[in-house]
């Protein structure tokens, strides 16, 4: 290897430029050969990879165009079948025509998975949008064409989206055969699959819709809880259980959900369990139980709430005051009154006064008296709370 630049002592700019141009980096012969081969190999591999990528892109594009075209053709044909079946009058002639039509579609189209998939999607869309006799006709057609078999296979799919779609379809179509398999998915490690399966159980097992709560150790997030609550309200002919059955579950999120459901369905009989849960080790459960005592106006819980007040955190304390204001009664009012006048903290005193005001006439009279009283803090709070402009 030669570096002519080093031979000059003070090279000027043009010398440098010329010398750089003339410089040759020559590898020893032993190394030169493998480097040339390696470079060639890299070039060949790069060209082949580029060609492969281009080919796969073209194939993908061609395939998607083909399926798109096929899809729109199929959709047109299926629309004739579906509208013909849904909207034509039910008579003897129609029954025969319908059978013939279904046989024709079975022979011509439904031997391929892709064709069945398109029909399933169309049927599903119509099923979601139409009710009444059209609903029953579509469901019968779904079973007559045995479309549920493909969906049942999708329950084992590796892809979670396909699994969720299958659960949704099976529950909407009321495929009872799928119930045990979907029940197993209610404890799935993927929260999306789990929640979908739990909601599906409300549709599929209307006698024992919430059985999946028993022994379920998976976390039931707030979002899951809201979804389940909404689904239970929307589902018709659902057998609503006594939710205090699950108050002894080890999973706090399940207990929390059951407390909320007790409130939702006004299950006043759950009050012994709710009072017990006020002393739970889990603060979220305690908070939910305290809130429920107020919502259900459980007078029996007033003493327990008052006892809990000094031992708990500020979030639960606020909920307790709010619940006591709803429950009312002598115990609650005496406690709130004492807190209003004697609490060391101003905020606490204010919350107690606010709760007192909510209890009704007695509370308002007390605040009116405090307004004219000697205690400056109580008077200011009363002035604020009784101000009608606020």
């Amino acid at each position: 290897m030669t570096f002519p630049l080093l031979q000059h002592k003070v090279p000027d700019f043009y010398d440098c430029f010329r010398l750089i141009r003339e410089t040759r980096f020559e590898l020893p012969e032993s190394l030169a050969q493998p480097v040339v081969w390696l470079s060639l190999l890299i070039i060949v591999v790069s060209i082949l990879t580029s060609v492969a990528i281009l080919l796969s892109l073209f194939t993908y594009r061609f395939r998607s165009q083909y399926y798109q075209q096929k899809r729109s053709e199929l959709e047109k044909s299926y629309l004739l079948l579906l509208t013909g079946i849904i909207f034509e009058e039910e008579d003897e002639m129609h029954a025969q025509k319908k059978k013939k039509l279904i046989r024709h579609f079975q022979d011509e189209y439904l031997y391929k998975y892709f064709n069945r998939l398109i029909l399933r999607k169309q049927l599903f869309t119509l099923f979601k949008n139409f009710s009444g006799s059209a609903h029953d006709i579509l469901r019968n057609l779904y079973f007559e064409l045995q479309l549920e078999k493909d969906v049942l296979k999708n329950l084992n799919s590796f892809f979670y989206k396909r699994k969720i779609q299958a659960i949704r379809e099976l529950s909407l179509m009321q495929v009872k055969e799928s119930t045990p398999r979907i029940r197993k998915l209610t404890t799935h490690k993927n929260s999306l699959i789990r929640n979908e399966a739990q909601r599906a159980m409300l549709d599929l097992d209307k006698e024992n819709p919430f059985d999946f709560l028993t022994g379920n150790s998976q976390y039931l997030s707030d979002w899951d809880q809201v979804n389940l609550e909404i689904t239970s309200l929307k589902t018709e002919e659902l057998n609503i259980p006594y939710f205090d059955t699950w108050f002894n579950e080890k999973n706090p999120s399940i207990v929390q959900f059951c407390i909320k459901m007790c409130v939702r369905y006004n299950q006043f009989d759950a009050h012994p369990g709710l009072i017990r849960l006020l002393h739970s080790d889990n603060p979220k459960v305690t908070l939910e139980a305290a809130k429920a005592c107020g919502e259900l106006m459980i007078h029996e819980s007033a003493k327990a709430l008052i006892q809990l007040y000094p031992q708990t955190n500020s979030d639960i304390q606020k909920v307790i005051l709010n619940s006591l204001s709803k429950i009312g009664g002598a115990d609650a009012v005496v406690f709130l009154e004492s807190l209003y006048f004697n609490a060391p903290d101003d905020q606490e005193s204010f919350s107690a006064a606010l709760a007192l005001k909510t209890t009704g006439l007695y509370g308002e009279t007390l605040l009116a008296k405090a307004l004219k009283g000697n205690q400056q803090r109580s008077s200011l709070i009363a002035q604020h709370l009784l101000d009608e402009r606020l």
Partner: protein
Amino acid sequence: MKTILLIEDEELILRALEFRLKRDGYNVIKAADGREGLHQIETNNFDLLITDMMLPFNNGLEVVGKVKKIKGKAFPVIVLSNVGLENTVLEAFKMGADDYITKPFSPAELSIRVKRLLN
């Protein structure tokens, strides 16, 4: 023959309803979104409007407002919607809708409501 303008973004539902209404003896003009619907309102004559609430570009309420402005307050309008919330229903009636149908609905029921409004 009476003409109905049908605006629905779900193509399958649009075509299914078109089939049903044609079978009932009506002439049907279709639109797949709010913008197309507004264009049809301005350019065509029709006797009844059936529109979905959730539409791309211009929603169902805008369409109802427009048709009432052009054709007059007495012009019959049926609104289809996935939302059955009280506020949404009241809003549709405030805009001048004559009927509000929540999905899923029975096609036979729609037929009867259409017949009632057109007679």
